[in-house]
């Protein structure tokens, strides 16, 4: 089973009777848009109880094509990493 955006909308709609289906959709979209905007601007995103999304700058480095063994240069890049919170880790490991 995979949780998708539609499932999040459904759950928000169910738990918040004051919202219409369209408003539930908007709220999930807005939540994601704000989260993305934070990371795109280079700012980390900390969702306490869930985890932290970090924006990290990686330096250029020499790598290899694992298929051919050819050496190549990997350009500098900026990436997003995720570190789960202790609460989330405990929740996943219980039972």
């Amino acid at each position, binding site marked *: 089973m995979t949780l998708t955006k539609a499932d999040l909308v459904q759950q928000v709609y169910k738990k918040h009777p004051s919202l219409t289906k369209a408003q539930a959709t908007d709220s999930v979209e807005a939540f994601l848009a704000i989260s993305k905007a934070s990371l795109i601007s280079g700012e980390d995103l900390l969702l306490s109880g869930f*985890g932290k999304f970090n924006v990290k700058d990686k330096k250029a480095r020499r790598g290899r094509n694992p298929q051919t063994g050819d050496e190549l240069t990997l350009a500098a890049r*900026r990436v*997003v990493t995720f570190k789960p919170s202790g609460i989330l880790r405990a929740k996943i490991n219980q039972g």
Partner: protein
Amino acid sequence: MNKSELIEALAEKINVPIREAASITNTIIDTMSDALAKGESIEIRGFGSFVVKEYGSYTGRNPKTGEKIQVAPKKLPFFKVGKDLREKVDQNRKK
């Protein structure tokens, strides 16, 4: 950005009271945590996906003392950033 800043931005964006935005944010985060706790994966287009990886028990060492210890089996959530977000984060690298 932390959770309370995200809640404020959400309240403003969808025009609801802070309390309502906080409640919606918690619903979204709890829904994702619950899915991972059940071992399900999450797939949000444009943002990224989460999968739970299972590790068996192994013999590790305390790096400080060199002492052998048995590490219990565990599950950990992994995040893979989506294509759209990955590209946008990288584009903003040197600005």
